[in-house]
């Protein structure tokens, strides 16, 4: 299958490993991955911070960039959530019915990584090996905007050597919330403290998730406290092979 990679601006700028791993998993499974270079950002940050006018050109660019592809994948529940739940609505609110229709069509072909693997490609075992104790934070937008359910857990359970431990209070927000982490830093930090305590309670070596943004937040806190617990994107675990951790 020919699959277009929607990298997301955060992965592009800060954590390219999640993007590389996404490419590696899909290519290993025999698919052709294309990287449309016209992409920049889906505009979620602007919409969610209250700047819809600034977001609209980004939405248009996103639609134009991904319109030619039959299947689009992103290593982020949050950005796919934005494509699915915000793009068409934003275009409609701006009075551009044509763009809204095109955005809805692109959204219908855009998948978060675990959705693509499980629903479109029909897989739970991607042939990965990752001999570590791992706990999984489901991330709010994957959980509630996309309803990915247990798809990531099914993928993780099929990984060789992986010891999956349940995260207490998994469905509670980690406190990232985009610009919320900066605008309401104190409350965000209090939420993070509880999430970190839950992660540490599992005695896992690795806290995984399907969103680099939440991982940046949780990982940044764990690093500050020098806990030694690492945060790793789901794609990186699925890309791991025996002898390569």
């Amino acid at each position: 299958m020919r699959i277009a990679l929607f990298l997301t601006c955060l992965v592009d700028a800060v954590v390219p490993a999640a993007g590389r791993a996404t490419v590696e998993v899909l290519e290993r499974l025999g698919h052709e991955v294309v990287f449309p270079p016209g992409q920049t950002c889906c505009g979620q940050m602007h919409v969610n911070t209250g700047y819809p006018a600034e977001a609209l050109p980004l939405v248009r660019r996103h639609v134009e960039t991904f319109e030619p592809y039959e299947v689009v994948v992103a290593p982020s529940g949050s950005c796919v959530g934005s494509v699915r739940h915000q793009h068409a609505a934003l275009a409609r609110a701006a009075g551009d019915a044509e763009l809204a229709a095109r955005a809805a069509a692109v959204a219908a072909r855009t998948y978060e990584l675990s959705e693509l693997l499980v629903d479109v490609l029909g897989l739970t075992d991607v042939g990965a090996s990752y001999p570590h104790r791992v706990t999984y934070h489901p991330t709010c937008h994957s959980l509630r905007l996309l309803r990915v359910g247990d798809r990531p857990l099914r993928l993780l359970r099929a990984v060789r050597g992986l010891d999956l431990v349940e995260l207490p209070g998994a469905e509670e927000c980690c406190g990232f919330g985009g610009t919320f982490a900066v605008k309401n830093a104190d409350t965000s930090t209090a939420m993070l403290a509880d999430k970190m305590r839950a992660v540490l309670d599992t005695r896992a070596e690795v806290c995984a998730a399907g969103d680099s943004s939440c991982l940046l937040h949780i990982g940044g806190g764990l690093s500050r406290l020098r806990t030694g617990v690492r945060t790793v994107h789901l794609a990186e675990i699925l890309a791991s092979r025996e002898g390569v951790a």
Partner: protein
Amino acid sequence: MSTFLGLPRAVDTSQLRGRPFPEAARAAVADPQLRRNLGDATATIRAKRARVVGEVPDWESLRAAGAAIKDHTLANLDSLLLQLEAAVTARGGTVHWARDSAEANRIVTELVRATGADEVVKVKSMATQEIGLNEALEAAGIAAWETDLAELIVQLGHDKPSHILVPAIHRNRAEIREIFLREMGAVGLPAPADLTDSPPALAEAARRHLRQKFLSARVAISGANFAVAATGTLSVVESEGNGRMCLTLPPTLITVMGIEKLVPTWQDLEVFLQLLPRSSTGERMNPYTSMWSGAVEGQDFHLVLLDNGRTAVLGDPSGRSALRCIRCSACLNVCPVYERTGGHAYGSVYPGPIGAVLSPQLTGPELNATLPYASSLCGACYDVCPVAIDIPTMLVHLRAQVPHPAPERAVMRAAAYAMGSPRRWAATRSASRAGRLLGGRRGRIRSLPPPLSGWTASRDLPVPPAEGFRDWWTRTHGSPPPATPPPAAGGDGAGAA
């Protein structure tokens, strides 16, 4: 004073806004006792609610029915309100219309004065909190006694409610015992000197204190959970029986109700009397559901219909579904922000997620600019809302309406410009890799300048990697394909990289 925006707004916004949220939240988050009280209480209610909602096989259908009835009501509010007025009047009640707080307070004060009473008993009513009725009555020399146990605790503590359903959620038993011992004697029957902090002992002290008030009061003021337009029936749903005492004992009853509390017919109540108790207290059925239509024999009954900004909310198609709210507080109990900050941080009588959308709409968003940001948009509030109010989407809608700080606006515009073309975006990323210079030991950035210092106050940031994704892609996959392959549909070649 709010700006006139074409539709009636609340004139007095004093009960609907306070300090900026981040500032008020900072103090709350730093109070470990408060966080423990809130964490324990919300976790308990959350688990109870989840259990009893899980028992109902058609919960999602009930929820959809609740939303549909409320939407239908809001779409026909004008005619349904007139129907309610006619029905209440026909049954011997008197209906008053109040545009705003000042009008409502004046109407109620005059009604109480006309009876010659200098004290009233109250059963919990958010509408009267919203308009600051107790303060207005006090200014007129009339004492108002809250009779709901939690409201009593708040009132005696010279405090403000911090939760819609459990107004004293921020207090623990030891604090309540102290408040009773210190304050009850000054305003009525004192608490026994040997009062312990066991729940039965506290409840008994409150019962004795309140009984004296019920028996002496000649006027009661209530809110209403629902009003049935067809029959003029009003309903109060409560747990302790204090409401029933207020509604039946005093010869004069004054009900203050927001105009959105309406349902068209008696049959519509069946949906809400299932949705409300399970969502709010986690009970299958409500302990005391009182209903009355017009005036009972020997009783003088007045209904005050309050607008106070609601018509303005109704005028916004993206915001009006906030008026579906039945004040169950389920959204507060699941909100991770509320759980850490408590209700006072919201600065309004309507705290939590629903408050974060309702308060700015009632006051006008420019007067409550920080509340739409008091959420991480995690979406838990939408999932539990029994009338399916899409609070996260509404928060985003309101964020677009509030005034933005100039530095933020500059950053957002610059980011949008950089992201406007792949060439500019690539240049920004090269610059961001210069961020590698900021990296301290172990490849972590530990301090950034404002406004990003909010991030590095508690979190490290990874140093951007030496090889970005696009460089890796070019190295491993060769040159990128043309920016836009031969068009399958309308794309017009958006700038090459």
